[in-house]
């Protein structure tokens, strides 16, 4: 590593453990381009999060649902207290500019408060955080580059002292950091399906530039669609419940944290009217919420009717008051009876829905489980 340093810039060592993890993570990427991008994103995210957790008194967390975004876009995100920080990795050895993909600026669900310029030196195994800026400054002082859909800010206009960011967080945590963002146009789930099919083909090397930004932004703003697109590109199976209830699917589903479980229909309680003595197959996923273990079960109740049940995995454990289990349509809309909230500590949360074949659902729990990935379950 270089023997020269500027006290305003932060130099962070990339540990062997982090490096190995980034390698493993990026192996599943669709193309060599996205593999490299995922690798760099992951190195930067893990190294910076480790540092911030040690140095910051505020709560530092990786953002939910975002770790795989390197498949599609450069950049990665974490939360520090109530601020959202976007890390923009770059291989460039000079400090001429910060180049932020438009997704991180113009999609309200992705936009951040602060943007950090991070230079990576793989051979010498270090990162250099050489400055930061805000959403507002990028919008007002940045230039928009049409060819790669990025906002760029000259190196000379960046705040070069990274400790200024931490002091700002501490002394003026409520300062306005964001410029106004124009609401996105919406697309239908039919359009989304078509886009996912088309852009899911990995021959399409840079899907982010393959369709007009407004359409791309609408697709990406929906966590579940975005994850579906990523899964499709990386040849991961999308979640088809019927298929996965079949015995031969057990390997595929374990890859993304679900497993098949046998159950006696009567255990569903009074709700299982058609109870027979024979056991049936349900799907279960283990979750960690606020440090405790829970299990979400997806239970076929009757033809076209499914139950979602959340229970504690601790013997005699309860669901604490305030927990909510929620189901949303594929386009993230609510519907009648889509929520069950524990008003007092309770044994389980339970929802039951009737669905047409081919319909999709997204499940959510509050508080959000660790490593939660929104995903559309197709029935």
């Amino acid at each position: 590593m270089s023997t020269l340093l500027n006290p305003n810039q932060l130099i962070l060592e990339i540990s062997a453990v982090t490096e190995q993890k980034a390698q493993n993570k990026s192996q599943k990427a669709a193309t060599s381009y996205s593999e490299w991008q995922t690798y760099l994103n992951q190195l930067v995210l893990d190294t910076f999060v480790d540092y911030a957790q040690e140095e910051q008194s505020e709560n530092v967390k990786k953002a939910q649902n975002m770790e795989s975004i390197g498949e599609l876009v450069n950049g990665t995100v974490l939360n520090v207290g109530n601020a959202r920080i976007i890390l923009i990795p770059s291989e460039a050895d000079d400090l001429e500019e910060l180049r932020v993909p438009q997704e991180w600026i113009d999609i309200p669900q992705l936009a951040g408060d602060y943007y950090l310029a991070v230079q990576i030196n793989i051979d010498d195994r270090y990162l250099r955080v050489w400055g930061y800026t805000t959403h507002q400054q990028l919008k007002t002082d940045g230039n928009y580059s049409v060819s790669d859909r990025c906002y760029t800010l000259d190196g000379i206009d960046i705040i070069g002292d990274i400790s200024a960011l931490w002091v700002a967080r501490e002394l003026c945590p409520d300062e306005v950091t964001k410029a106004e963002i124009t609401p996105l146009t919406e697309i239908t789930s039919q359009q989304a399906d078509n886009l996912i099919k088309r852009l899911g083909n990995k021959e399409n090397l840079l899907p982010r530039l393959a369709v007009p930004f407004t359409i791309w932004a609408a697709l990406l703003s929906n966590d579940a669609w975005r994850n579906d697109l990523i899964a499709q590109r990386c040849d991961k199976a999308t979640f088809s419940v019927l298929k996965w209830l079949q015995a031969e699917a057990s390997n595929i589903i374990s890859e993304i944290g679900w497993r098949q479980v046998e159950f006696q229909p009567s255990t569903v309680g009074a709700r299982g009217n058609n109870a027979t003595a024979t056991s049936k197959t349900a799907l279960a996923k283990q979750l960690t919420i606020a440090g405790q273990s829970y299990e979400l079960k997806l239970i076929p109740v009757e033809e076209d009717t499914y139950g979602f049940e959340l229970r504690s995995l601790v013997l005699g454990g309860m669901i604490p008051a305030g927990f909510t289990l929620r189901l949303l349509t594929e386009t993230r809309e609510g519907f009648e009876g889509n929520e069950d909230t524990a008003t007092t500590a309770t044994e389980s949360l339970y929802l039951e829905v009737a669905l047409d074949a081919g319909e999709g659902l997204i499940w959510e729990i509050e508080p959000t489980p660790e490593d939660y990935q929104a995903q559309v379950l197709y029935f």
Partner: protein
Amino acid sequence: MRPRQDIVEIFSTFIQFDLDRFSNWASDPRLRRSMNQCLKESPQEIAENFWGIYWHKKWSKNPKGLAREHLIAYLQEVCFWSTNKTITGFTSSQYNVPDCFQVAITGIDKVLKGFDGDRGYHLKSYATITFSNLIRELLRQRQEIDICSEWSLLRKLSQKRLIESLQNAGLSPDTVAQYVLAWSSFKTLYVPNRQSSTRKLNKPDEFTWKAIANWYNQERITQLNPPGEAVSTTILEQWLLSCVKAARSYLYPNVTSINQPKPGYESGEIVDSLVGDVEESLLNQMIVEEEVEQRNQQQNQIGDVLIQAIAKLPADERKLLELYYAQKLKQAAIAKALNTKQYNISRQLTRVKKSLLKSLAIWTEETLHISLTSDVIKNTSTIIDEWLEHHYNPNP
């Protein structure tokens, strides 16, 4: 080097080099006239650093005007000494003073943009650190491009640097656009693999070259105006190697140009009529004793706050400041002196800076009644940089 004494001289002359040594001060007649006129208009004698602040204020109103030239003249010695000190210890024959001096002085805008015109005090101290950082960064970048293969170097360029390098090489805008597209096609399709060094990338294989050419030939239709001809892999290779060459010479500017007129001479667009455009109100307002008094007082207060904050730091952090600012040790030497790992030094320095910044920001809010934002804190940070440099090196 003969130091300049006379205030007119300080704001209107430039260093001339003879090979790699200082030769003499060359005077710029326009700047001399402008400075003489200012002196005539000013009601009383003004200290050198206040002339610096005055021209900085004028610069912020008109960044392309004569003020910038005066400031370039003013900061010559500082740039010269920063260059000398920073490159000491670099044995390579490639680093000579005039060459680094020239690169540093062209980074003047970084000094001027960073300096806080409202609360700043020692422009020279601020320039010292900024020039040192610029030169260190330059040397680091040179080391990196010297050990990189052509193909690695291409991946280590920012788009902005590439465009500047190509413009610097005198290429037409259409050619620049073609080269940039060729470069981004290369970066999209030729990705390092993690097992090998990112500095030693080999030439792409036949298959990859074809993919790059296909990509370029497809993209040029939508991205270039005019789209130009479809190109072969041979042409692409030539173009990319031209990019490499342009980027290398951008970091090693032609040394023969050292004996050419310095910045300040060459800006022919500054018409002579600008000389003598003394803004009386600003000058008077600046030089009213009150303003001088007020700045002096504020500078003392800032000093008190920071001296107290430093006194409260743990002993090893105080030592760190001393090693870094007063003795200007390099990272490895600091690590050795403090018996710690190199990476810790960067983190510790950031931590120290953060704690000083916090103290001064709180003081700013409470005493000056300025409400804090990222922008105010950024300016406060530059005041600390300036103050630390001046505190540990009072005579730049």
